[in-house]
């Protein structure tokens, strides 16, 4: 009741003034543009000097839309993108994965080396690096970050990639600026786990107390006053207004500099504005209230292409995305009795490689691209699309559209339409029919499933569509296995290495969709993939790793466990007011290099 009493008079005043305000419309101020920054702190002992394409100037802000509020500013506990979009910018990391070059570069660690044993990694920390409150970042903080990550009660998701065969790495600090990590077994994915978005380096002097008191999970929550959020990245949280915006301000102690020894970031602020509706975000960009969009519907690409000059923005073509799309059939079996989860009749079809190939070859992907992707699609035969520079394999074995061949394969199985109803039957006279499930809220997936239904009808296979709620779908995949086939997609992690996808490839993996959590590999081929995964994770030789990854993908496509579908090409509009903008296909597409972006001087 107190709330209401406090509110009433204010809202009435607001309403009374409603009419008058219409007159004051249009006068928009850009106060943040006018504030020039002068760096009060001296250069640290070992600054991180970046050779930037363009030297920028201080001031201004970049406004990006976000569909949902960050849920926490605690990078260790963040589990969804609205939070990690923010924490990857605010948290320090030992190494940096450069989205543009898709390579690892120094960040908090100036350099690192692996000993001849392949398991002892030494990281040299940057001298003079400091958190946003000026407190130095040392090996103590790194050790503390590992300690929290390894906590079994909290179980942060960073922990998963910091283990070898279920065992935690041994981490020690010989001195204040050296950290030694013993990975127990050779581990080629260590840098993946230590770059931004992996293990955040958190301030021990602030977070040790809540950790010891058992309050770590709720530390750095969105209700914490921003001046108490001490972080080590280029940015710190300046302001958070629930449901409206998160404003990031510069970390005045950040150790990154441009080639003229001017401290980064250039911008005064990065603003994440909450715009839940995608159409509204579109309009907000068009009216200049947002400076870029990191997600555009493909049907709108055309409008942006045509209006680049008038709108003073550029539509950046980032090429094929890293989100894959595929169908798989339910091959789950009870691990004790061996009884399949689907009708044994259907299991006999689904488990037949030839059937899976026939399905794949009945899907006309080239026709799908103009109609569903508005021409902005590309065929892809792996989780690693062409956008994945390091791991993409161009000439991968695939089963593309070939209607004649698909029919021949089915006929070869002895399946034919004996009763003339347009649907083929197997040898025992059962009509070949199955359902495709997908999540109803994803219009692209539903459209693809519809398309596939029509294509498969042409070879005499009857498909029914079952768009369901996402949570139902996950329950079907993970626990009750109540489905025939599912159409889904996966988003690559950053960096998009095979190691990041091992839960998909490994037979024991949770997202080994067609038959997850196998106690031992169900087929020799899955066993081989498990071995190859070990090779990738233990080898330090990139050529060996790539060869192994190619073999995994070849086995996958020989078996047809995933029936690959086209993927979306990504195009994003960004205002021309900014310099050093380098949108990339990886997650954090626009702001991965936010500290280097600046407002260009206005040309007259």
């Amino acid at each position, binding site marked *: 009741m107190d709330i209401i009493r406090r509110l009433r008079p204010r809202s009435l005043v607001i309403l009374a003034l409603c009419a008058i305000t*219409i007159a004051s419309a249009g006068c928009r101020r850009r106060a943040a543009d006018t504030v020039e920054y002068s760096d009060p702190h001296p250069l640290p002992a070992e600054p991180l000097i970046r050779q930037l394409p363009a030297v920028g100037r201080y001031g201004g802000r970049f406004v990006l839309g976000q569909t949902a509020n960050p849920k926490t500013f605690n990078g260790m506990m963040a589990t969804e993108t609205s939070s990690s979009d923010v924490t990857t910018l605010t948290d320090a990391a030992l190494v940096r994965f450069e989205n543009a070059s898709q390579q690892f570069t120094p960040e908090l660690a100036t350099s690192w080396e692996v000993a001849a044993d392949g398991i002892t990694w030494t990281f040299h920390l940057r001298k003079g690096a400091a958190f946003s409150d000026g407190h130095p970042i040392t090996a103590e903080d790194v050790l503390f970050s590992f300690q929290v990550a390894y906590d079994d009660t909290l179980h942060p998701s960073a922990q998963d990639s910091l283990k070898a065969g279920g065992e935690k790495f041994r981490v020690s600090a010989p001195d204040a600026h050296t950290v030694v990590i013993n990975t127990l077994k050779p581990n080629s994915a260590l840098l993946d786990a230590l770059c931004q978005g992996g293990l955040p380096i958190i301030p021990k002097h602030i977070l040790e107390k809540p950790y010891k008191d058992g309050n770590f999970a709720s530390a750095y929550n969105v209700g914490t006053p921003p001046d108490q959020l001490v972080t080590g990245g280029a940015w710190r949280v300046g302001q958070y207004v629930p449901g409206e915006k998160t404003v990031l301000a510069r970390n005045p102690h950040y150790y990154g500099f441009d080639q003229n020894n001017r401290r980064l970031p250039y911008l005064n602020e990065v603003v994440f504005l909450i715009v839940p509706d995608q159409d509204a975000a579109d309009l907000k960009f068009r009216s200049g209230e947002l400076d870029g969009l990191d997600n555009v519907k493909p049907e709108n690409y055309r409008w942006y292409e045509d209006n680049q000059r008038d709108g003073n923005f550029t539509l950046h073509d980032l090429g094929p995305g890293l989100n894959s799309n595929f169908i798989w059939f339910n091959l789950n079996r009870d691990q004790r009795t061996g009884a399949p989860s689907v009708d044994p009749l259907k299991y006999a079809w689904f488990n037949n490689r030839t059937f899976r190939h026939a399905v794949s070859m009945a899907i006309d992907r080239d026709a799908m691209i103009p109609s569903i992707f508005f021409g902005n699609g590309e065929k892809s035969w792996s989780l690693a699309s062409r956008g994945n520079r390091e791991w993409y394999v161009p000439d991968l074995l695939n089963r593309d559209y070939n209607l004649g061949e698909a029919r021949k394969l089915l006929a070869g199985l002895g399946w034919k339409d004996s009763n003339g109803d347009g649907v083929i039957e197997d040898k025992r006279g059962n009509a070949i029919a199955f359902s495709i499930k997908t999540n109803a809220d994803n219009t692209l997936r539903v459209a693809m499933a519809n398309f596939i239904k029509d294509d498969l009808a042409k070879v005499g296979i009857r498909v029914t569509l079952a768009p369901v709620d996402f949570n139902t779908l*996950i329950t079907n995949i993970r626990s009750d296995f109540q489905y025939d086939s599912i159409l889904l997609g996966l988003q690559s992690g950053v960096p998009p290495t095979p190691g990041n996808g091992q839960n998909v490839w490994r037979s024991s993996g949770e997202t080994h969709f067609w038959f997850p959590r196998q106690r031992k590999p169900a087929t020799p081929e899955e066993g081989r993939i498990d071995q190859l995964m070990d090779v990738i994770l233990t080898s330090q030789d990139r050529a060996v790793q790539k060869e192994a990854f190619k073999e995994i993908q070849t086995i996958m496509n020989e078996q047809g466990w995933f029936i690959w579908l086209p993927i979306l090409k990504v195009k994003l509009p960004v205002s021309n007011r900014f310099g050093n903008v380098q949108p990339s296909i990886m997650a954090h597409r626009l702001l991965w290099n936010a500290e280097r972006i600046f407002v260009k001087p206005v040309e007259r």
Partner: protein
Amino acid sequence: MRTYVLRRVLQTIPLLLGISLITFLLLQLAPGDFLNQMAENPGISAETIEAMRVRFGLDKPWYVQYWIYLRNVILHFDFGQSFSRHQPVFDVLYEGFTNTLILAVAAAVVTWGLAVPLGMVAAVKQHSWIDRLLSLIAFVWLSIPEILSGLLLLMLAARTGWFPVGGMRSLDYDELDSISQVFDIAHHLVLPALVVGLIPLASRMRQMRGSLLDVLRLDYVTTARAKGLSERTVIIKHALRNALNPMITLFGYTLGALVSGSFIAEIIFSWPGLGRLTLDAILTQDQYLVMGAVLMASLVLIVGNLIADLLLAIADPRITYD
């Protein structure tokens, strides 16, 4: 009167208990739980998810979870934590509640501020062209879905620059003086308030019209006219007061729906209210946040109905509660 209010307040306790139990059961019946959202992410292992399940208490059977929840609510007035935000549920809901209330009150002002005078005009000029025109406009607006009218107004804002394209405050809000701040919020409020407020306008206007027409036919109005009072005085002083009686009841009842009436508009206009919050909570099965939101909406509904009944007693001396 006092005993009546007390009785009504006491009645809410079993009601809220029932609502909380049903909500909890429905949440349990829905497939999956909060942690399912993480299941699509190949970077998060089964052990991590299992550890979180234990940490959130989701590994226990539903009746144990409900019992713990109830005990915390009754003994400590603790409504639990939001899983996603690691924050107490009421802290999360409070932020949205005030904003939703601002929008709801503004919308109510639009509705009632237009419905009463326009309904009067329509009644006095019954069957005239203006009566018909008003009905036409009101019904056309009633039949446009909120999502469409909202987007159309947003497009107007983007095209003309007369209004901000959604949101509640400008980015520079904090640098403004307090008067400009009020102006700023009001400026952002105009379009969403119109979208939400104009929808019930048609029915309210027709109700006002009908109610006034009923009264105008009564004997005492004829008497007033016969006394030689001006038509203006007859309508405003004599007829209107009685005609407003049913409207007051209606107003009281709409109070209850205030908080939940603007969810769609909130999402389209990026208005930071309860709408998005509740929707997110339901979609992600943020259990205790949903419970808190439902209980709060129920409470507002109950209080709204109580106020409606009390208003009626105040406005009409013939009605008493004992």
